[in-house]
């Protein structure tokens, strides 16, 4: 694998490592938000009907 250390290298996408990191951060943030929402939604669903019983 090529090294990931050269900060100025433009990869085939047209992105540098720093730029793809910024993009990646949005994906990760999105995943975190989804996770938090699903935990809370499950909690509320449990309160209404404990595992559909």
């Amino acid at each position: 694998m090529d090294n990931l250390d050269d900060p100025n290298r433009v990869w085939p996408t047209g992105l540098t490592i720093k730029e793809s990191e910024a993009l990646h951060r949005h994906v990760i943030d999105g995943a975190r938000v989804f996770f938090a929402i699903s935990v809370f939604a499950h909690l509320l669903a449990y309160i209404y009907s404990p595992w559909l019983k």
Partner: protein
Amino acid sequence: MNSISQKAMRAWVGLGPRFLPFADAASAEVPLSRLLRLSLVQVSVGMSLVLMVGTLNRVMIVELGISAGLVATMIALPVLFAPFRALIGQSSDTHVSVLGWKRVPFLFNGTMVQFGGLALMPFALLVLSGGGAAKDYPVWIGQAAAALSFLLVGAGVHTTQTVVLALATDLTSEDRRPKVVGLMYVMLLVGTIASALIFGHLLEEFTPGRLIQVIQGTAVVTITLNGIALWKQESLKRMTAAELAAPQPSFRDSVRRYMQGEAARRRLVAVGLGTMAFGMQDVLLEPYGGEILGLSVADTTKLTAALAGGGLIGFAAASHVLSRGADAFTMAGLGTLVGILGFAGVIAAAPAGSPMLFAAGVIVIGAGGGLFGHGTLTAAMNYAPEGQAGLALGAWGAIQATAAGLGIAVGGLLRDAAMSIGALEGLGAARGYMIVYATEIVLLLATFAAMSSLFRPAGNQSTRG
């Protein structure tokens, strides 16, 4: 960086640019298809609004048996978030990212928040109604969860709408903005009307399971539409280290600079007064038709359609006139005059006992509101100072949404107050409505007066001479 992140990074950089959400290098003119795609955000905004204000309003009271006061509080919560539109707009103006993005991150986050609110909402409402096993838990859980979900949806709607209007301003030149504004308004109306019909149909046989399906389905549609809308809208702008490190103006500084602009304060006052004037009759329309003119439920529902139809006529006329070079503010002023005419017709309908006159008045009010809304939004875009499109559109939206919410509340309160103190006894049950409609005429006159110094002769800026 841990190894999983590193693998993911390699995947990102290995993908072709076709699969990345960046626009192609900026072209001279953004194609209509791209603007049409951008306006899909308005459809999801309309969907969320109609769900909260219309569909769930009824479902919570009738099917879930939640008290009307609590329901009204929940519905009012998103309006509290409206003033933050200015802050959101300003943050997006000054957002710094290595990708050079300003609007897309906010659009993405706003969409996530809106999705989150909608995903939680059905469970929150079911717990709030105390159904199932929820009655064994303290009441505040349901109240807090429902309040949270309404706030999240409201925050999402305010964020995405502000940023999408700012992005539309960035993408278009002055001569094309009237068309874009028309498109944005029409898409909002389309989203509202279509989803009202679909929600009504889907919830005809109400079950808790169906409620969950409908609201969470809305969440999925929202994230899909907004995803399609934001895809490849902003291009990758490589930032230099100096640009990344440059200090950004604070909110206070930005507002001060914005307020120094051409009659900024006067324009915002006009937007607030006018929107409130047009908004006060929103919730009174159907009761007035039913109570005073004795129309059936089916007929009063048609009134709402007539108002929307009038709005469409207004938007179409505004787009046409403005794209031929008329001044946006002059046209908005004309909209207030049209509105006065409409309200006069509605007032005259009660003593005349004429539903036809009433319907005509409602259509004229809709058209006036359309002209006014279109004109002020186009003006907000065109007068936005360089680099402050987000703040300009945020301020417009903050005033507009707050005034609309206030207008609805004031309209209802004013009618009830007029009824209880027994003003204008001679007019019978109509007097409460009369006072509201008369107030709206006065407000529209005030709006016209506030705007009149901003009018410019037509053809000042472009083609028409």
